[in-house]
């Protein structure tokens, strides 16, 4: 049953007069006031808010509320500033949060303080027929405070519509303005505190203008990626959760790909930046790798029998220690002059990229260049892939994986210049092959890391023996899994190389270039030497 409620903007100063007006017709009883303090939790990318949910802590209770403000489930909890899904005891709350939150941290984003003055309007029998609340709210967060205009909340009691309507009419007559606002409006709190809750840091999108030149596109993409890196930097330094470094490195990886993919089309010398971004990629790698392994702890534990669990624990304790070291080192590197200069120089470079003449490097029509590069890389992938047999060494698959990754980035960069829907469909197909190659590579890397670690174990104490056994057990398991993944490669590749998928790629180009139709027939005869 929904509660019928009407809200009005009502400054404190007006309340006394309004209550006197009401008292002339019905009895008004003051029922005291209540103070509430509600702590709102969400990830830094507002995942719960995006889904219309709110995670609120008040009076020792942590509740997940739906869009209508009703609690979906609650647990007892002490006050916290930050926690993960894994910190929530097993149960309905954890089950609801896990798929939305994943590995991100839930942070205390802001607090809503509320003071309610409660009044009951009674009839001649002393029965409450309308409930009034004068609500003053304030949101505090991100070092700011936002005060909200006080509201008068008029609540109807079922079966007592007439007195409710009467009170609402009196409020209107007294000059109060009705509003759709309700107490506890999270969106308004976020706005008031200046949170950018519209941001979605997932995937990469950029709208390039039709007719854009290569150099301009390069600058636009580079700047968008630099924005993402900067946006995640604070989170990395504060070590809020592992996703910040992950997102930072993804943007970094794309930036490096941007340079390697387009350097042949640009007139400018990118070598300095290529070297510096490579440095950045290397120094940020150790911490990321350790994060990934630490996230695997439960899965690894599930792979081993009871007898090897203690060895695994030693291993992860060691990894945790290493992680602390890696984090300190990265913090230093990201606070260094070298890093600060790189970001500043890169930004300056992109902003000052000169416009090139239409026929020169950097000045060509981006759409045409994109098509040429995509088709070329596509051919290269087909060439590499077809050569792979059951006997091919792991390096061949590794190379193919790198090629498909760059290929994907290329298409994503220029999606806005191509047939967007076809692009999405095509990338869906490409993803299947990429997943297979990615899994294979992950398993290889994991085995290498574990084997290397095992090899480096010095001394032969009990602890080392147990650890070595556990790692041995993991390596066996991972090797078996890798075998299965390898066996699935042929099918995955076949699908990618099928006529159906190739036709899909062609469909991608049916947008933008007016000479596309002509070009397609020309391509058939051309061996592609123009490239």
């Amino acid at each position, binding site marked *: 049953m929904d509660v019928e409620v009407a809200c009005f903007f009502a400054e404190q100063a007006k309340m006394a007069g309004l209550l006197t007006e009401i008292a002339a017709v019905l009895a008004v009883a003051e029922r005291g006031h209540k103070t509430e303090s509600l702590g709102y939790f969400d990830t830094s990318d507002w995942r719960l808010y995006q889904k219309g949910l709110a995670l609120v802590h008040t009076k020792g209770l942590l509740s997940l509320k739906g869009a209508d403000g009703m609690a979906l489930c609650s647990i007892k909890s002490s006050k916290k500033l930050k926690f993960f899904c894994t910190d929530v005891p097993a149960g309905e709350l954890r089950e609801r949060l896990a798929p939305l939150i994943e590995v991100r941290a839930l942070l205390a984003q802001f607090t809503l303080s509320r003071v309610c003055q409660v009044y009951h309007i009674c009839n001649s029998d*002393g029965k*409450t027929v309308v409930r009034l609340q004068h609500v003053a709210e304030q949101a505090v967060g991100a070092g700011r405070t936002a005060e909200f205009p006080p509201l008068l909340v008029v609540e109807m009691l079922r079966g007592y519509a007439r007195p409710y309507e009467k009170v609402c009419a009196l409020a209107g007559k007294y000059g109060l303005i009705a509003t759709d606002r309700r107490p506890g409006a999270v969106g308004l709190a976020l706005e008031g505190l200046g949170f950018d809750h519209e941001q979605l840091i997932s995937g990469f999108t950029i709208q390039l203008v039709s007719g854009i030149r290569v150099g301009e596109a390069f600058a636009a993409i580079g700047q968008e990626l630099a924005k993402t890196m900067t946006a995640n930097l604070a989170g990395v330094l504060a070590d809020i959760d592992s996703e910040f470094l992950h997102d930072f490195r993804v943007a970094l990886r794309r930036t490096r790909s941007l340079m390697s993919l387009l350097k042949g089309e640009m007139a400018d010398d990118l070598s300095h930046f290529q070297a510096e971004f490579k440095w950045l990629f290397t120094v940020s790698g150790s911490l990321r790798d350790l994060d990934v392994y630490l996230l695997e702890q439960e899965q690894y534990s599930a792979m081993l029998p009871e007898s090897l669990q203690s060895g695994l624990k030693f291993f992860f304790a060691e990894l945790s220690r290493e992680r602390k070291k890696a984090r300190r080192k990265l913090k230093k590197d990201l606070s260094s002059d070298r890093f600060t200069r790189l970001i500043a120089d890169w930004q300056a470079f992109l902003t000052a990229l000169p416009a090139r003449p239409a026929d020169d490097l950097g000045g060509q029509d981006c759409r045409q260049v994109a098509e040429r590069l995509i088709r070329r890389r596509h051919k290269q992938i087909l060439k590499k892939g077809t050569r792979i047999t059951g006997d091919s060494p792991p390096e061949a698959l590794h190379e193919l994986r790198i090629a498909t990754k760059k290929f994907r980035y290329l298409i994503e960069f220029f999606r806005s210049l191509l047939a967007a829907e076809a692009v999405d469909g095509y990338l869906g197909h490409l993803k299947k092959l990429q997943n297979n190659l990615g899994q294979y590579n992950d398993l290889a890397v994991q085995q290498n890391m574990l084997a290397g670690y095992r090899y480096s174990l010095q001394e032969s104490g009990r602890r080392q023996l147990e650890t070595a056994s556990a790692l041995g057990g993991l390596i066996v398991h991972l090797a078996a899994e890798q075998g299965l993944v390898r066996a699935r490669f042929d099918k995955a590749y076949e699908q990618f190389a099928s006529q159906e998928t190739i036709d899909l790629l062609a469909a991608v180009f049916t947008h933008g270039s007016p000479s596309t139709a002509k070009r397609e027939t020309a391509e058939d005869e051309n061996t592609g030497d123009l490239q």
Partner: protein
Amino acid sequence: MKILAIYSSKGGVGKTATAVNLAYTAALAGQRVLLCDMDSQGAASYYFRIKPKKKFNSHKLLQGDFGKYIRESDYSGLDLLPAHFSFRNLDLALNELGEKERRRALSRLFAPLAEDYDALLLDCPPNLTLLSENILIAADIIVTPVVPTTLSLLALEQLLRLCKKVDADHRKIRAFFSMVEQRKTMHRTVMEKYQKFAMFQKTSIPFLAEVEKMGVYRQPVGAVYPASPAAKNYLQLWMEIWPEEQK
């Protein structure tokens, strides 16, 4: 939704106090409760300070057109369908219905309420009419207060006979000793003799001044004296009666 009829063919045994206080306890425990005052005397309605709307009457009730006459009490989660003076003719109205209909009319009427309520409590008039038969058939649980005297036991026997007549399962009956005065020998004797029967709840409600005064302060006892023995007794009684799986 579970339907609980608070019923006794004998008046003055604490039926309405039970209905009001159990309804309040249930709402406090988080159930969505509707208390239907079926007794034209309207005592339960009086305790809640709720009068029926002018247009309400027994005719509207039997037509199923009573949703808009339900009124919210002062207590969260507790609504009341107030009694109306015309309810004294409910028997006659039910008698007008066909043979198959006349005993099942209330069951049908109450079914749609399951959407909004977890517990439907019926405060019943103290008699043995067609209305009573309807109530016994519609109810999932029949809560019957028994003052530990010989006459009260006679009334209990009448209830059992009525259940048999309308083919209502006597295991629905949850009897409990009401208005108990330990200093009275008869009370002690009767309780000793009959407490062991499965039908009787372990909890009994003593005669308490606070309960008697409900008509003065016009609130459930738990609202005025939340920590009192009276409030605790009713909570205990509710815990015994309310089905295990619903808790």
